């Protein structure tokens, strides 16, 4: 066992979760470590198993098999010790609506045994830091979505957790609140807090996460830094051609000598968008010239031709496919399968 492994803040080993005895596996064998001071992203389509995985870490989901260690503590064996080390911010507000904002923070800290004076001081400090100074005596019913989100993060920090888990923290927030939360997360990392983040937002994941696990069908299908994940694309320099065509033109482009793989989808108004992935290397001619020639030969009107810069979204779609997902994460449509 290497020292990096033993120091993991979270270690997930062979995790399986089946909610009903004969139902499908929501999590089908997941292993990963979250290292101290990193922002770890969990990315995946709806129903991929992200929330279940997070649930096992926060002690709210009991694993069917496998184990989860938080700071060396087995979550199933000693949930109380695990809970002392973690804080979770859910997607939707779960603030205590009977209390004011300040009381939300101070009572939360009291559950963790923080002294009276200390919790008042820390609460006031966090309220100011999260832009809620002056609104501390408001009832949280009167808080907007963005304010509630900030207050939940402030509350989570009241007991100084080693690990902060954020479930889609910026979904549905305005751009200002989103930027503020991004800065906050980076700031927290700098202060030594380890973060786990689930998100659908590729820009968010790309910008914040040190490492990202892409989950699909209850399994991790890729885990790396955003930069290295982008290299998982079949070619970093593919192209995208938009042409006016009466029918799927992908066969015309499939024969290009530099294209490893081609996929097409309708772009509306009788247009098709064709993506050709392959080694381009930037030589003269290459994919763009070949594609142009192919379109001309077939007499198709060229609308747009652009290079594909591998974005995290491309990686994500490449790895998880284009099908919409049902509630259980099963693919419900194969229209886009290439």
């Amino acid at each position, binding site marked *: 066992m290497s020292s990096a492994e033993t120091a993991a803040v979270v270690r997930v080993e062979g995790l399986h979760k089946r909610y009903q005895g004969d139902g499908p596996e929501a999590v089908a064998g997941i292993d990963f470590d979250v290292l101290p001071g990193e922002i770890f992203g969990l990315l995946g389509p709806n129903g991929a198993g992200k929330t279940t995985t997070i649930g096992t870490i926060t002690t709210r989901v009991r694993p069917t098999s496998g184990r989860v260690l938080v700071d060396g503590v087995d979550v199933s064996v000693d949930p109380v010790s695990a*809970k002392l080390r973690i804080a979770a911010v859910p997607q939707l507000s779960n*603030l205590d609506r009977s209390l004011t904002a300040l009381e939300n923070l101070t009572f939360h800290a009291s559950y963790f045994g923080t002294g009276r004076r200390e919790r008042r001081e820390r609460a006031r400090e966090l309220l100011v830091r999260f832009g809620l100074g002056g609104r501390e005596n408001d009832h949280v019913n009167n808080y907007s979505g963005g304010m509630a989100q900030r207050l939940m993060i402030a509350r989570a920090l009241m007991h100084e957790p080693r690990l902060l888990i954020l479930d889609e923290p910026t979904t549905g927030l305005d751009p200002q609140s989103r930027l503020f939360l991004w800065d906050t997360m980076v700031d927290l990392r700098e202060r030594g807090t380890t973060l786990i983040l689930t998100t659908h937002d590729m820009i968010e994941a790309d910008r914040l996460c040190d490492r990202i696990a892409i989950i699909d069908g209850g399994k991790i299908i890729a885990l790396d830094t955003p930069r290295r994940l982008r290299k998982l694309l079949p070619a970093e320099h593919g192209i995208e051609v938009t042409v006016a065509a009466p029918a799927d033109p992908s066969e015309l482009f499939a024969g290009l000598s530099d294209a490893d793989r081609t996929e097409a989808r309708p772009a509306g108004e009788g247009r098709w968008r064709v993506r050709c992935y392959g080694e381009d290397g930037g030589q003269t001619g290459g994919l763009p010239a070949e594609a142009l020639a192919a379109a001309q030969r077939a007499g198709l009107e060229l609308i747009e031709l652009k290079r594909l810069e591998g974005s995290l979204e491309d990686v994500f779609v490449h790895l998880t496919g284009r099908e919409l997902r049902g509630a259980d994460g099963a693919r419900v449509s194969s229209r886009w399968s290439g």
Partner: protein
Amino acid sequence: MNAIGAAGASSSGLRGTRTVQLRAFFALCGRDLWVTVRHEFGSFLAQALLQPIFLLFVFGRVLPEIGAARPGYGTQLLPGVMALTLVLTALQNTALPLVIEFSFTKEIEDRLLAPLPVSAVAVQKILIAAMRGVLAGLLILPLAALILPGGVHVSGPDWPALIGIFAFGSLAAGAMGLVLGTAVPPNRISVAFAVVLTPLIFTGCTFYPWISLAHLRWFQVFTLINPLTYVSEGLRGALTTLPHLAAGWIALGLAVALVGFGLLGTRLFTRRAID
């Protein structure tokens, strides 16, 4: 941290865990008492006391005055109204918040992530609801003194019995609320309340002493299913000289209700809290 260090930390953690858990338990109680006193006192009183005020007024004052009930009926009624208030307040104060917190506001999540076992969160809910029940039950005495025409006549109260019935009756009712609040899906809760509360209120020996049902044997037996019967009869025994169900049966009835509903409710609560 190496493997040995981690093991050492968690075993010393286990030693300190009991203190941590107790502190969390009392802090949760502190939050609930604070909310009861500072934010919800008016609504708590209205919810708990409006019904008994009207019961005492109509059955204890109006009916005797118009000759529809015997003049002493109010005094006979008092233990029943107290029991009803105690039980309903404790039951509703567990069941209603649980339904709301689990299904709508998700407020329960902050408690479930507090450093104490999930079952302790359930027990804490019962305890606070029971305390609210006891408070509401006690407030019936001054209210009855004001409302009933002859005031309150308590003949030599049996204090240990009174305290015992208040404590165990309210805890059992809180446990019933825990079962109701966790077993019923949120979209059925209004139906469930009507279906559970109405028979509970009318078969709990609140408006009639159990002994007087001797001529209606099947109904007398039926009332024994209702935990409220034991609270009503217990208070009747503790506060009046009227004949009542034997003390042993009362103790047994309350114990069965508390243990049965307590275990079932905690189990259901844990199932709701942890998938």
